[in-house]
């Protein structure tokens, strides 16, 4: 069905959208249905697998004899399996799914060439499956965040080129003059990721760099993946969801511009601080630490922008799961960045290097910031694709609080445990096993947090499954909003 012939009506002054706009959006949503749901469903499956692996890995740290002696269940293979499933299975696919929908909406054109995306989803799943299987069977490359053996990496790359081609084509057909903020971030993400992935693979596997540079390239890749791929998608999503849900414009265009460019410029230079005090020329490390200090610019800018947009509308979080998750994610971006700054400074890094604190940092970025924002996006997008509302408000609330408490507890446990572990390591009179003893109770606490997160994800998966089966609520009002209040609230939700 071709919607390009629909004439555009001038946008009305009121907050509610005009009828034509609604129609346009309905068509767009309908066209994105299959590709986005394919990505989302795959992502959910990987999320469940990754969560189970995470629990296993967490428990094994304080109960090392749990199911040990079996080669494919050994901790050293389960841990990269968990990480890669989460990074390339859950996060990337959920991010791509969200980006597809956002691009279609913002380009204001129906999704074209859906087969490209369907194929991409299929290939991506295959790549992740082969990669994780390879790791579990002993083919891990040994590079962190790039453990997928070559045969899986190439499939991922092929899948990605399909996505990228689609994005370029969509962009070509866009309507409207302005390129909205979200589109900057998404375009950035879609362009940065293949360069990043290709550079990483080239410099580590095809034309390998010498010695310690492999580590530098590896962490440059990992860090840029976190910021320029995941972070960009999450920030772009937040820039759409927050103003969209509350019906107000983003506070300031200037802040958004400065925020985007400073983010791109400075975040891409971080990464080497993870190698502080290692066998590297000091300037590399210091440049990254200086870049981390400078990332306070985009953090402050984006934070202020969102905050001022939301000003006076925070109570709406009661009624919108999207808003809850997205605001949580956006705030976590600030927390994540500040924690990152603190643990990067050399005087502090002395105590937290080589400890669990860096795990806390990674999870703050990938979960508290990225995943929570994507959860919010999924809560918004899925009803529009399925034509049903989420069935149980209680499950949504449970999901939110379990996730929030889960990641909060995990961060606290790992940061505290990490600092104590580092302090012990810095005390040469203590035998090394003391450091392990010190951190063990915090690892148990982290397992507890893991249980919370597992519960949360199973709930969400169940709820999502219900939606897929068409068992969502048929209703005109969203699940959260009290129908009585819907009458009173003007312009509703």
């Amino acid at each position, binding site marked *: *069905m071709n919607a390009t012939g629909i004439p555009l009506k001038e946008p009305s002054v009121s907050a509610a959208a005009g009828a034509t706009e*609604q129609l346009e959006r309905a068509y767009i949503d309908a066209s994105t249905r299959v590709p986005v749901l394919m990505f989302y469903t795959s992502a959910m499956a990987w999320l469940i697998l990754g969560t189970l692996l995470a629990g296993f890995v967490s428990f094994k740290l304080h109960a090392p004899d749990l199911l040990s002696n079996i080669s494919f269940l050994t901790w050293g293979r389960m841990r990269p399996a968990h990480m890669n499933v989460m990074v390339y299975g859950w996060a990337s696919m959920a991010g791509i799914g969200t980006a597809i929908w956002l691009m279609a909406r913002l380009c204001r054109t129906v999704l074209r060439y859906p087969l490209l995306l369907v194929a991409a989803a299929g290939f991506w799943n295959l790549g992740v499956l082969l990669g994780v299987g390879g790791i579990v069977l002993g083919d891990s490359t040994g590079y962190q965040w790039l453990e997928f053996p070559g045969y899986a990496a190439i499939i991922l790359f092929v899948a990605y080129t399909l996505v990228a081609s689609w994005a370029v084509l969509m962009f070509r057909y866009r309507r409207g003059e302005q390129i909205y903020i979200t589109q900057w971030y998404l375009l950035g993400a879609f362009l940065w990721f293949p360069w990043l992935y290709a550079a990483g693979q080239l410099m580590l596997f095809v034309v390998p760099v010498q010695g310690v540079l492999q580590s530098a390239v590896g962490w440059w890749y990992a860090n840029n993946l976190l910021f320029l791929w995941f972070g960009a998608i999450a920030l772009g999503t937040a820039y759409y969801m927050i103003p969209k849900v509350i019906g107000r414009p983003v506070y300031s265009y200037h802040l958004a511009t400065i925020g985007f460019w400073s983010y791109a410029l400075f975040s891409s230079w971080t990464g080497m601080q993870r190698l502080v005090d290692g066998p590297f020329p000091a300037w590399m490390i210091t440049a990254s630490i200086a870049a981390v200090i400078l990332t306070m610019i985009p953090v402050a800018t984006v934070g202020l922008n969102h905050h001022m947009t939301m000003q006076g509308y925070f109570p709406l979080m009661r009624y919108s799961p999207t808003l809850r998750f997205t605001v949580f994610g956006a705030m976590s971006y600030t927390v994540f960045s500040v924690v990152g700054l603190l643990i990067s400074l050399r005087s502090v890094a002395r105590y937290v290097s080589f400890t669990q604190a860096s795990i806390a940092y990674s999870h703050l970025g990938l979960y508290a910031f990225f995943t929570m924002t994507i959860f919010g996006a999924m809560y918004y997008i899925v009803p529009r694709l399925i034509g049903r509302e989420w069935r149980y408000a209680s499950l949504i609330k449970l999901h939110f609080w379990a996730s929030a408490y889960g990641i909060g507890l995990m961060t606290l446990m790992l940061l505290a445990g990490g600092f104590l572990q580092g302090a012990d390591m810095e005390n040469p009179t203590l035998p090394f096993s003391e450091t392990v003893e010190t951190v063990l109770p915090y690892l148990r606490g982290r397992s507890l947090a893991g249980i919370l997160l597992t519960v949360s994800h199973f709930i969400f998966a169940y709820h999502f499954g219900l939606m897929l089966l068409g068992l969502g609520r048929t209703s005109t009002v969203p699940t959260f909003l009290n129908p009585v209040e819907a009458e009173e609230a003007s312009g509703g939700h």
Partner: protein
Amino acid sequence: MNEEPKEPARTGQGMDYGEQADVQQVHAAVQREKREPRVGAEPLSIWLIAIYGLAIFFGGAYLGRYSGNFIGGGLDPLGAPPPAKRAVAGPGGGEQAAELSPHDRGKKVFSANCQTCHQANGQGVAGQYPPLAGSEFTNGGSRRMGMIVLKGLQGPVTVKGQQYGTAVMQPWDKTLTDKQIADVMTYERSEWGNSASSVTPEQIAALRKELASHAESFTEHDILAAPDEDIPGGGAAPKPGEAAKPGAPPKPGEAPKP
């Protein structure tokens, strides 16, 4: 548009998205949506600019302070001053990838080759190996010393009033390069209280050419027959006692050791 909820015939079983989306059935979610997001144009707050300034200042300061001179060998963030300055300050092992001084290189050569006989303290072994510390050959002109090192010495020799003669010193012209010989001589001539001029590889090369026709080792007689002078040529630093030229490379005997 259609304000009613969906038709009751739809029981909720089976999947929605096989069907053609019916224009009439724009679902409620899209209907109640707000407009697509727009952007406002509030100006920048002065406080934000202050934060930018602070970030740039601290970031820049950190970068300047801890960058180990931005060189590849600068592993220490509080890197030492650039190599050029340090070479003048005195010989010493390179903290960064700076070259070792002739003195230190010579010490390595000495330890690898000469130490077994002449001992690490340059005292030699009584009756067997002559000392180098305080020796007239070591402290005299570099020609005689160079001849001994290049071609070796056999037969009795008197050093510092003592006689030595049971051992034979091997020739080093085939084993060591000009640079190594020059360095080890420089080291010996500035170590253990010795203070004599340093020796350059060019001087050794010249001496080597001179002695090219001389096949066997020297005897004391041959050595004493040669003039007690420094080998001509090369940029040897002035002997001690003469004023050091400002800016001249450090004289091994005078520059303070770390």
